[in-house]
């Protein structure tokens, strides 16, 4: 089978991967050990496979790995700095926003992208941004609370 090489940045590290042209980004990321990228529907409906590509949330099940050539990809594994969790991750833990945790990476990445473009979102804006992440455990109450709490905490920081 025909192979091709892509060069990209994943979680601030340069990567060079040999892929087949039809490989999906979701499959390649998981094959390369980024297990935080979850498979939920493979149709772009559930958001469990969300990653940020050049800062923008995308469903990695709908993107060819080849399209990530030359791009900057952030997965959930790259959100914390070593043992230092991102404020969103801290807020998810403090507010009981994690139950099974399967949709959590997608939710946190979507929230991260939202806060990057809108540091002061309203609850409606948070719900809007997270409406692409199905969660069957939480009823979304605590995840939304967690994102709003992270926003508030960021405002308090100098």
């Amino acid at each position, binding site marked *: 089978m025909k192979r091709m090489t892509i060069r990209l940045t994943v979680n601030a590290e340069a990567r060079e991967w040999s892929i087949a042209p039809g490989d999906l980004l979701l499959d390649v990321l*998981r094959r390369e*050990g*980024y*297990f*935080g*990228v*979850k*498979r*939920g*529907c*493979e*149709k772009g*409906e*559930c958001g*469990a496979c969300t990653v940020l590509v050049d800062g923008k949330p995308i469903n990695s099940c709908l993107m060819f790995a080849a399209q990530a050539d030359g791009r900057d990809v952030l*997965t*959930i*594994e790259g*959100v*914390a700095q070593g043992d230092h*969790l991102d404020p969103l*991750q801290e807020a*998810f*833990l*403090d*507010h*009981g926003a*994690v*139950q*099974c*945790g*399967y*949709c*959590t*990476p997608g939710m*946190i990445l979507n929230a991260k992208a939202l806060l990057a473009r809108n540091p002061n979102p309203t609850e409606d804006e*948070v*719900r*809007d941004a*997270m*409406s*692409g*992440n*199905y*969660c*069957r*455990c*939480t*009823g*979304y*109450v*605590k*995840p*939304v609370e967690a994102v709003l709490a992270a926003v508030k905490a960021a405002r308090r920081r100098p």
Partner: protein
Amino acid sequence: MTTHVVGKNLRKVDGVKLVTGRPAFTDDIQLSGMLYGKILPSPHAHARIARIDTRRAKALAGVHAVLTYKDVPRVPHTTAGQAWPEPSPYDTYLLDNKVRFVGDRVAAVAAETRAIAEKAIQLIDVEYDVLPAVLDMEQAMAPGAPVIHDEPDSTKIYDRERNIAGYILREIGNVEDGFRECKYVIEREFRTGRQQHCPIEPHISIAWLDPDGRLVIRSSTQVPYHARRQCAMILQLPVSRIHVIKPRIGGGFGGKQEMLLEDITGALALAARRPVKIEYTREEEFYMARSRHPQILRMKMGATSEGVILASQMTVLATTGAYGSHSTTVQGNTGSKVLPMYRAEHMRFECHVVYTNAPVAGAFRGYGCPQGFFAQESVMDELAEQLKMDPVDFRRRNAIRLGDIDRLSAQLGEGREGLPRVIRSCGLYECIDRGAEAIGWDKKRRARSRPGHLKRGVGVAFTMQGSGIAGVDWASAFLKMNEDGSFFLQSGASDVGAGADTVLSQIAAETLGVTLDKIVITTGDTDTTPFDVGAYASSTTIISGGAVRKSAERVRDQVLEVAARMLDTTPDNLICADNRVSTVCPCSKSVTMTEIALQSMYKDKMQIMGGDSHFNTDSPPPFSVTFAEVEVDTETGKVRVVHLVSAVDPGTAINPMQAEGQVQGAVAQGLGYALTEELLLDELGRPRNANFLDYKMFTAKDMPKLTTILAETDEPLGPYGAKSISEVPINGPAPAIANAIYHAVGIRVRKLPIRPEELLCALRKE
């Protein structure tokens, strides 16, 4: 009782690995040489396999195993993950020469890549003798209906000739006498839909042979021990040759209380002698996994002119689909957990559970109660109206209360006679009062109809559930002390995301007087943890938690003995708190847990360790009262829930933050059940909406304002007073919404889900 760890909003013990995306789930491993398994699903609702030829599939490069019914042992069993002996019929086979629903297993392959596996199943040549199918549950028992289980070797089927998987009839008193004494009697028919669990992680199982040749099955299961026992029977291996591992699970909701892929991945791994993984696609998850039993319920209730309910009767027809997994037990619950909500002297429950050539129903959060409460709470509302009583007051007057004995449960247990339920804790009345205040019941109930096409109304529902299956569910735990004063806790419980590992750790820490970080928990591994029935029937906190508490008490006794020697006192003069053991007397001497551990391990040469088992002979009910405010658009029939209040009595909330999360998640599923979710089949039994887009769960944007109230009580049978919480809140949304719709527009909705087009038709007829 003052507690230090129990009752606190502590972070989930497995939280960090989940928010950082570390490999924790079934699929998050790579095994060298792993093959991809794929099941060939039946395209027909009912057919016999006349001829099956696997030669072309086997010849495909990269294919390592192809299995049909000819290649595997024929062992009748149930996929229901229940305690042995399972009450569900043994009507299922690893692979069979007959298929009974669209999606039933025809054959299975294992190949080097997913693409090859997908191609290989298409290369299996199958010639079907298509049989007439029955999809309508009302036709299933009719004379001349096709017999779905005509095989002679299935057992425990109630009446195979008439497609009746199970039948239940129980009566207390004499309902006919009761109804004769009633001034008001109402009887109505209700229909409920086929809801799917939709865990975001579909079912997945990976099987391989370890270096000792034992079969290892890593699986997204709620019931590792039951799965091990079932696989041993089906694959004809000794239990000791199977090792089931339950990693983190991406949601279960009852759907993973089912041995669905473990057996077939195990069979493929044994055939190929290589690791094999099968993961359902989302589409497969919808129709090849399980769903909630659709029911047709006739509910009849009668009350005196003073508003006292004398008799209640529920008659149910339910379908279990093609196999009888959880058939009698789910439907038994529809009666036994629902009717005793109100203190009628006379109660009667009758139920037929029939086979149809439809996807298989099974365990699903609520376990028969959402259907039953929809019917009962709707009829309660109609009775209140006839009596000209406030619906809350009417319910309050008749509801079960502290000290009551529920006699129906004594007659109707887990597929056999049960045990009577005694109400030893009851926060129902606090739920009513706080819930009514939160929704603004009195004011909104009396509010005049608004002008225009948007009409508002409020409705209520009272519900209850159980906490473990009385006399059946049991669990065990084991603890050992480390030299740094920490403890390893091993429990067979299965955390499926609801937070069991955290709650069990909190119970252990509380009992031992240590901080939560001193407990290192291992669960859900049949090689390393002691037995537990698994995560179902709202049992984990009360039953597994009871085992953890007992085990921790045994270990604490040993800790105190060592400490007593070190402090030259007696154990009864000592308490464990703050990671140390201190004297109670004014001398205020103490030793740290670390010092005690070092003393016992390196000086006394004794491992501090201990375990215990636990079960209850009663199943204390958690209570919940749900209030809903809705807005009905009379021009479109669309129902918008404006505010939903769920007030729940879970006993003690071991971790209130997690308990609230259980309520909120259950309500979200309950909202979907009420308004949007239903797996639809076409006239040939094929799924019409087996994807998220067309199935329609609630998203973050669809959710109404949601108020969660915990009305805590102290349950004598539970560890630190805990009962349960995960199931009961799912029962209330549908009836509360239906009652609110009536309040808003005067239409009684008796079918779930409540579809705008149907409500609009009813509004137009008005």
